[in-house]
């Protein structure tokens, strides 16, 4: 067991897979010699050399296109898109190419690759460097979408993503990079499509992802101690494949559900999860499923505004408390 940061877990997770499989290669902007702008890939080029850990030009379309071409022909690329907001400049590869080629070719073309990217707010970077865009990817058929909340999950889910035969988008949360956690020594391999009940509870289910997981946990503690509401908190971890079993079973037990997401309000993953819940366990619900989201606005830069925009512990507590009439 070792304590390490979420940031260091990224490099460890990639290294674990690169050591195991020489077909795993890694490309992106400033990832090699500089170790990444978030310093999450420090040491990799020294360990694996510049042919496997490759700096690219500022050409996101070329990055994802090259990753796709390499994946189609036998390699297992990991591509970094520095900030998840930049997915917008190479969205064709996600939306139309690497996600669809297996289907379009009747199964001939395979795209086993991982796109890892720094997602989410908290750094006062403003509207073009702070977004949470899991929903941009969840809505595309053919993609798998993962967002770990702990260092151990970073390593284990990275391994699962790299070993997965389908394209996986791996959302790392910027604000979690400095956060520490325990991780077992040796190889860690997790599974895609498995949510985790990180706090059991009887009165309501809170579905959260990435940075929203610790916030949901803190809110649950406060809801319990101050308002007597006992919330189950589920770290969804993987949006596609989605662990509907764990989620629906929990809601069937607690009879209430709340989602907590950084996506701006409209068409976020919270809407999808709520829709699944009401479709499948409608009669188990004792009250309306509510979404706690960033408002439907671009993100502001300065701290007082950004902190107000992204769901906070206070807002989670307040929303749930009020909805549960406590």
């Amino acid at each position: 067991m070792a304590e390490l940061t979420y940031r260091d877990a990224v490099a460890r997770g990639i290294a674990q897979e690169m050591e195991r499989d020489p077909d795993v290669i890694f490309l992106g902007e400033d990832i090699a010699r500089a170790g990444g702008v978030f310093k999450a890939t420090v040491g990799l080029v020294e360990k694996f050399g510049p042919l496997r850990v490759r700096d690219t030009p500022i050409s996101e379309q070329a990055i994802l296109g090259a990753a796709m071409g390499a994946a189609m022909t036998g390699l297992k690329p990991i591509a970094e898109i520095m900030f998840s907001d930049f997915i917008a400049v190479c969205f064709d590869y996600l939306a139309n190419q690497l996600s669809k080629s297996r289907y379009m070719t009747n199964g001939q073309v395979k795209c086993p690759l991982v796109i890892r990217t720094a997602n989410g707010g908290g750094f006062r970077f403003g509207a073009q460097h702070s977004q949470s865009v899991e929903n941009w990817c969840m809505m595309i058929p053919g993609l798998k979408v993962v967002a770990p909340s702990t260092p151990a999950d970073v390593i284990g889910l990275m391994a699962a993503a790299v070993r997965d035969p389908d394209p996986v988008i791996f959302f790392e949360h910027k604000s979690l990079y400095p956060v520490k956690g325990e991780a077992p020594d040796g190889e860690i391999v997790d599974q895609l499509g498995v949510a985790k009940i990180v706090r059991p509870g009887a009165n309501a289910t809170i579905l959260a992802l990435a940075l929203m997981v610790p916030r949901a946990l803190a809110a649950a503690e406060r809801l319990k101690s101050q308002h007597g509401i006992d919330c189950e908190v589920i770290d969804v971890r993987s949006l596609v494949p989605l662990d509907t079993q764990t989620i629906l079973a929990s809601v069937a037990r607690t009879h209430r559900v709340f989602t907590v997401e950084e996506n701006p309000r409209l068409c976020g993953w919270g809407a999808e999860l709520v829709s699944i819940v009401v479709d499948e366990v409608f009669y188990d619900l004792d009250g309306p499923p509510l979404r706690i989201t960033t408002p439907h606005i671009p993100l502001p830069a300065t701290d007082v505004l950004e902190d107000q925009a992204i769901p906070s512990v206070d807002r989670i507590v307040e929303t749930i408390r009020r909805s549960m009439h406590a």
Partner: protein
Amino acid sequence: MTAAVTQDLSTDLRLRLYRLQVELRESEQRAYDLFLQNLVKGTSHLSLGQEAVAAGFAAAMEPGDLTFCTYRGHAHTLARGVPIEKVLGELMGRDNGLLRGKGGSMHLTSVERGVMGSYAIVGAHIPIACGAAWRAQYKGSKDITVCFFGDGTTNIGAFHEGLNLAAVWKLPVVFVCENNLYMEYTPIGKVTAVPNPAADRASAYGLESILIDGQDADIVYRTAHAAYDKARSGGGPSLIECRTYRYSGHSRADPAKYRPEGELDFWRGERDPIRIYRERLLQAGFDEAALREIEDTVRRRVDEATEICKAAPPPSPDILCTDVYADGGSAWRN
């Protein structure tokens, strides 16, 4: 453009180039006929008139080399040896099609034959081809990747990003611009800052400017061969612009009325690649009967393929949700 020098091409190769061009011509012509009979589903983009490019580049490839092409990819797919009925079957949306009707004419793919896909978003495949070539470089394998696209494609961002990456990484990839003078309906000169959309931009990637006559299969073959040799031996990418022309409209819906009077006649007449090649072979002493034999054989094969396709059923509705993910299905949940 240099003149065709044919001496050092073997008799076999020359007949192969001729046969290939005839096969592409006859197959595309049949696709057009089937469309008129309402048997082709969806859209289709023919390469009638552009056969020398597809034949020349394909003939110079080795098995294991990789092709990336566009929605205008029937010819490039056939030229790698994919059976005619698999292509026509896909156009007709039949179960015997290359993709069982799931992809359609714009996405012809045969991994077995090295045709790594036809791409319908302009320019998208240029970086993808880079990735395939990167794999060869990384693995130290000797295959090369050939990427075909049109003149209009040189104005899109992905072209620029892919060309730069290929040049910086010295990838074993050959980029082939088929300049057929039009993007969709707009003359390429009206929307492009340079007269030769690919050749005049090669220097922006530190590459040699190469502009050839795309109607002469021998020139195409030789140029291809030189570029492949360079790529295979670590010399990096090439960008080759071929001047050519499409006889039909952009796609099935297009009567191509935007072309100036006489332009089509000129190209279809003295610039027709098959006519040029046939005359050259006859002048070089090839037996006309042998050429006729090739033409007849090809036509028979196209007829047979057509019958196979007409007899083939549509795909089963059961495949609607297969092969989205590697487990064979489309389940996004557990």
